[in-house]
């Protein structure tokens, strides 16, 4: 369900602000928003993100619904004080209520306002199903994940290309006997190095994070750290070493660096996090509150934060979502446009956005 999101994000910055573009399928994934932030009444669109029946591909556009939690967050972000330490905002809620998409909305907003977005689409992917675990060259206790790190670097590159040439590295980094990055060279070189030499990808990620933190502290840029599924950083992993002993999340270099990033010991930006039960490991299905999903360790690490609850659709939101589907002829059932059909859908999905989307996929 997040694959669609991943593809969405790289095109964010190409959007002209404020216009409702419907691009063709060639460049399908642009997010259009109705930029009427003050009036929460206007909810023109809804977004769908299932990879199988991806309306993004079908409609040729990706649309977001402007909802209250996102608006609240945007309000906070507009009033961020860049001299204070970065504030952490945590989006939490039941399964399928729209936390990830609220995050997307925020990212889009920040991208439009020329922040540097550091987006981790799903932290759970880093703690499970990893094919290669290498011993880190930088620190003997930690483990590298070259594949995940290179994927992330690629995304980062496409998302923030124009920043990469502007930011200059403050230190000299030696990769191996032959290659090194001098001080003052653009960040793009570090990223290239990580992408070329996959073995060093994790270290490249670590360097990028460190540099960005430093730069934002110096006030040269505004940084938005957006992590989805942040409870993965403090849970358990399903990874094992060769001798079948379990790996704790701290031993993964990526996780370690990300934890440092999510700490509020830097200023010049904001941190927006999302909890997710769907990809989480060893957590009960009904858990959705921060302390349940983060555990004691995570909660203490993230404390203090601003919690933002994302709940099911209210009637107006449901209405507009329904209208969007109808307009785009997504609902083919003959009873779908009727009042009864709408009431049925309302009942069956209980106004849960995720459920509604899944139901409509069949119709």
């Amino acid at each position, binding site marked *: 369900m997040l694959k669609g999101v991943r593809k969405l994000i790289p095109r964010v910055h190409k959007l002209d602000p404020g216009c409702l573009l419907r691009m063709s399928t060639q460049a399908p994934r642009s997010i259009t928003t109705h930029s009427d932030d003050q009036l929460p009444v206007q909810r023109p669109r809804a977004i769908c993100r299932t990879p199988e029946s991806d309306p993004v591909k079908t409609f040729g556009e990706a649309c977001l619904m402007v909802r209250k939690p996102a608006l609240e967050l945007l309000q906070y972000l507009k009033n961020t004080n860049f001299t204070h330490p970065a504030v952490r905002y945590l989006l939490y809620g*039941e399964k399928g209520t729209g936390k990830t998409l609220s995050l997307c909305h925020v990212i889009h907003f920040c991208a439009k306002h020329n922040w540097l977005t550091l987006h981790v689409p799903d932290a759970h992917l880093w703690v499970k199903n990893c094919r290669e675990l290498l011993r880190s060259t930088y620190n003997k206790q930690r483990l590298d994940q070259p594949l995940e790190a290179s994927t992330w670097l690629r995304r980062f590159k496409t998302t923030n290309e124009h920043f990469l040439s502007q930011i200059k590295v403050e230190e000299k980094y030696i990769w191996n006997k032959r290659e090194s990055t001098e001080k003052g060279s653009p960040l793009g070189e570090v990223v290239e190095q990580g992408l070329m030499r996959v073995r060093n990808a994790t270290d490249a990620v670590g360097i990028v994070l460190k540099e960005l933190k430093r730069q934002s502290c110096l006030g040269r840029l505004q940084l938005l750290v957006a992590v989805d599924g942040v409870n993965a950083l403090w849970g358990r992993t399903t990874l094992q070493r060769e001798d079948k002993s379990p790996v704790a999340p701290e031993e993964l270099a990526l996780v370690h660096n990300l934890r440092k990033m999510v700490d509020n010991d830097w200023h010049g930006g904001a941190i927006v996090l999302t909890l997710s039960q769907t990809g989480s490991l060893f957590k009960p299905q*009904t858990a959705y509150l921060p302390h349940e999903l983060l555990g004691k360790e995570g909660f203490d690490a993230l404390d203090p934060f601003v919690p933002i609850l994302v709940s099911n659709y209210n009637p107006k939101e449901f209405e507009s979502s329904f209208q969007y589907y109808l307009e785009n002829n997504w609902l083919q059932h003959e009873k779908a446009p009727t009042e009864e059909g709408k*009431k049925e859908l*309302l*009942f*069956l999905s*209980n106004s*849960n956005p995720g*459920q509604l989307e899944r139901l409509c996929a069949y119709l």
Partner: protein
Amino acid sequence: MAAPCVSCCRGLSYRLFLGLRVNFAQRQGYWQTLPVDAQTAPESQILRLIHTTVVTTKKNVSASGRDSYTEDFIKKQIEEFNIGKRHLANMMGEDPETFTQEDIDRAIAYLFPSGLFEKRARPIMKHPEQIFPKQRAIQRGEDGRPFHFLFYTGRQSYYSLMHDTYGKLLQLEKHNDPFPQKTESMNPIGSRWLIKEELEEMLVEKLSDQDYMQFIWLLEKLLTLQYGPAEEEFIQRFRRSVTIQSQKQLIEPLQYDEQGMAFSTSEGRRKSARAEAVVYERGSGKIRVNGIDYLQYFPITQDREQLMFPFHYLDRLGKHDVICTVSGGGRSAQAGAIRLAMAKALCSFITEDEVEWMRQAGLLTSDPRVRERKKPGQEGARRKFTWKKR
């Protein structure tokens, strides 16, 4: 028991053969109960015995026990039954005069409690008419001459009945004027013709489907003519009343809680799940199951569709709030149980007609299907062990 009469001669020879066997097999107890006048000459004795013996093809006579019961025997059984009834009444401390069959059944169930599942295997005490099957009366005189003029047709009762009916029909046609007017017929509602099995039982004879249909056709034709009270009585012998489905759905009374909101409670069951639902009159369509929202309790859409069914049928989707508790069973059984409970509770808020519609839609019937027992020698309830050729 009705003697199946395929054809007279063939049956006769059969019976001859088997009757002899019977003769040799059971000597003591059987013959002594026979009336003396029946045993005049050996041949006629055999003939008669055979005639009264119910002999079908390949029937295990010894296993089925004695098949013919003479009138005296039946009379004696009836006397014994009555005496036994009075004794039973005394035992139970009730009045022997007003001791009905239901009282007898209750008394027997109390005195001989049985854990058997099959109701017919439990001890019963009923009037001998109901226990001993109907017999044919003796059909030949002492000289071997049959009493009935249609004896040699093989099915004397059936043909005599057809003869009588047709005679009545002709009579009525003769009496009636050429324009037959239909009297108000009593048949449409509330009664039906006898079914084939019932007719067979009445005539103590086997019938074929065509015979039965012929007979009913004759009766129908009779109905179209004007008839008097005698014919009416004749026809009524062949009609049975049909009980109208008049089980009234028990409508729960409304209760009112503190805020003055009306609500109604009821229970439902499905397999081994038990549910109790409280439906409030005004609400926004929220349902809470065991304190959890129904979307989380039933993540499967099918279960939620089950919950939706009663409301959707009555077109009251967003109008009621429900709070229910459920236990036992699996997810599907729990969904079914809650659905039944909700439908029953909804009855108190809707009109009689809608209750009837719900009943016809099957919303108010509790599903009788339960898990079938596993039988020995099979792997499951129906599945047999893998058949191996050798």
